[in-house]
């Protein structure tokens, strides 16, 4: 790792200009601290910034670009490079559930003030139908051609009229292998281990209803998008009986709880879980569980009424550049779907198997569908599940 640090140092010292960002990096080095990216991805800050400048090309991109997204879902160095090169400061407002984000957008009418919103694939149809996002101007996104073919013509948004892929990922199991010594391969194991003495009371589930209901349906390989009331109620009963008594928390970011010892096994998003291996490479194990799971994707969209539309397009274009996309993927741990991204990852990238799905995993993954899944009932049932958990 120390060689990498020196390389970065040299590149920074050699670059022109004494930007604020360089200062920060030097200051960080002086404090003996690793850079914020969890991989020292082999790209100098200045080269990313140059790309951003080239994109900006003198066009007035305004002062601020407002992005509405999940927290911790972008590489800070990439954002800094965009701001440094192309101009506008980037401000990220975060939401912790897609429905809440859509509700906020809807309530605000056209005046929410965001220039880019990150929408989950299952909800794209909804936001288009509700006219919450506007059509993209492809002439401003020439890098669209860099997107791998399979992401360019998705069923819910043919021809990328409204959205551009940000990244995709899946869900799996992360556990402390010093405390849980048995092997976990499928969701059945998850249920079993959760009830075991070692893990009971220290289990963490994700905080959204599709993921939690998924546990029951994926376990049997059944359709987890069902809206059938009877099936959903049965699933609720199973969860309340078999799993809820052992749950400690519903938490979208279990890494911290695992590190602090509050959880020993958790359901988690693969990219965010990968961060634990930067802290501690041995005591935790990640599993892509069988027989079934979800593959989800997140997409950039521009809300209707966005103020800084040009900057939004420039940003999306910037993110589609292979080098930038590689830097993004290397940090957040999710494949951004751009041509050549995987090849550009450095050799010593942490746990590449958590960025690129191993052989056979993709075949087991299915997409989420909101339409027909009876979301109102699901939310009520999820509240029931959480209330049951609180009673334990």
């Amino acid at each position, binding site marked *: 790792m120390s060689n990498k640090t020196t390389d970065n140092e040299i590149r920074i010292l050699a670059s022109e200009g004494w930007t604020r960002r360089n200062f920060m990096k030097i200051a960080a080095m002086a404090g003996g601290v690793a850079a914020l990216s969890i991989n020292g991805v082999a790209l100098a800050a200045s080269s990313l910034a140059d790309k951003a400048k080239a994109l900006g090309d003198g066009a007035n991109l305004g002062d*601020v670009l*407002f992005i509405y997204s999940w*927290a911790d879902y972008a590489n800070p160095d990439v954002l800094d490079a965009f701001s440094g090169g192309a101009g506008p400061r*980037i401000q990220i*407002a975060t939401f912790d559930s897609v429905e809440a984000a859509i509700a906020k957008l809807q309530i*605000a*009418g056209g*005046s929410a*003030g965001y220039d880019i919103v990150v929408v989950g694939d299952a909800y794209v149809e909804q936001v288009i139908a509700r006219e919450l996002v506007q059509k993209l101007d492809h002439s401003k996104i020439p890098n669209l051609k860099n997107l791998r073919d399979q992401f360019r013509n998705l069923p819910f948004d043919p021809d990328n009229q409204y959205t551009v892929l940000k990244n995709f990922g899946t869900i799996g199991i992360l556990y402390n292998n010093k405390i849980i010594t048995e092997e976990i391969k499928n969701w059945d194991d998850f249920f079993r281990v959760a009830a075991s003495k070692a893990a009971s009371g220290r289990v963490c589930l994700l905080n959204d209803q599709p993921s939690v209901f998924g546990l029951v349906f994926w376990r049997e390989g059944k359709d987890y998008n069902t809206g059938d009331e009877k099936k959903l109620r049965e699933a609720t009963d199973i969860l309340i009986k078999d799993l809820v008594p052992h749950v400690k928390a519903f938490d979208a970011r279990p890494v911290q709880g695992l*590190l602090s010892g509050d959880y020993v096994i958790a359901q988690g998003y693969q990219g965010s879980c990968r961060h634990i291996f930067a802290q501690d490479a041995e005591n935790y194990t990640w599993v892509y569980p069988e027989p079934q799971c979800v593959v989800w994707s997140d997409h950039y969209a521009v809300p209707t009424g966005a103020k800084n539309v040009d900057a939004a397009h420039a940003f999306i274009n910037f993110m589609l550049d292979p080098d930038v996309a590689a830097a993004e993927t290397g940090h957040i741990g999710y494949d951004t779907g751009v041509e050549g991204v995987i090849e550009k990852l450095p050799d010593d990238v942490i746990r590449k198997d958590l960025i690129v799905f191993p052989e056979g995993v993709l075949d087991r993954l299915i997409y989420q569908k909101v339409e027909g899944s009876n979301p109102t009932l699901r939310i009520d049932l999820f509240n029931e599940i959480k209330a049951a958990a609180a009673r334990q």
Partner: protein
Amino acid sequence: MNIFPREGLKTTVFATWFLLVALFLLLPIVTVIVYSFNVGNYLVVWKGFGLRWYWRILENGNIAATLANSLIAALACMAISLVLGGICGIILARRSALIAYPLSLLLLTVIAFPEIVKAVAYLVWYVKIDLGVGLIRIAIAHALFGTAIVAFVVRARLSGMDGKLEEAAADLGATPFVTFATVTLPLLIPAFLVGGILSFVISFDDVIISLFVSTANSTTLPVYILASVRQGLKGDIAAISTAMFVLMILIFTLAGAYLSRSGASRRAAMLMLAGQNDAHQAG
């Protein structure tokens, strides 16, 4: 133990209890301050000592922007609260029970109403009346609470003084307005200071209402911090929280110094600080 005039076992027991409680109250604050120097990526795992996160918050434009939003909203809230609260406080202290009693009831309702209910109601209403500017929404929403606070502090102050000074001014031929401007207002300055600080701090620190009512560019610092805390504790949040803490201490020290210099007795200051609750007693 020669600081205590009355010695004995009971005093010792009480004193120990007090110290334990004080420790309890200060413990998490000290913890965060210490951990803000933890250079590790995850706050819960101590990795080493350093100023990394302080550099980071200087760097992070987001924090600066949300901090600015919080300050603007809090200052606006304070201004509105001082004006409206001052009026309410004077009404409560001086006017007939016919007006004062309903007003008191109204203000108590505003204070007592659960935050989440207010947040939902305000949001729905702002959408209905098409008020779109986030910071104005937040300032007004906070000021409704702040006004009540200032009102009770002002009332506590006024009810502690009888009307003799104002009577004297009237006897000397001053119109009500002149009396107000030259006698009442200056006497109320300590109350305004205390009430102003209270409403500023309450606004600055507010989470739930700001969460519901804000728009994109009016995200306040606590909302930003809350999102971060939910996602996992990071050092930059600890750093900015520490910085805010130091700022608050400064504000209070300055206010305290001013108060004691301006002659308001310590007892009066303490009573004013608790003036909001004093109101419950009396009304």
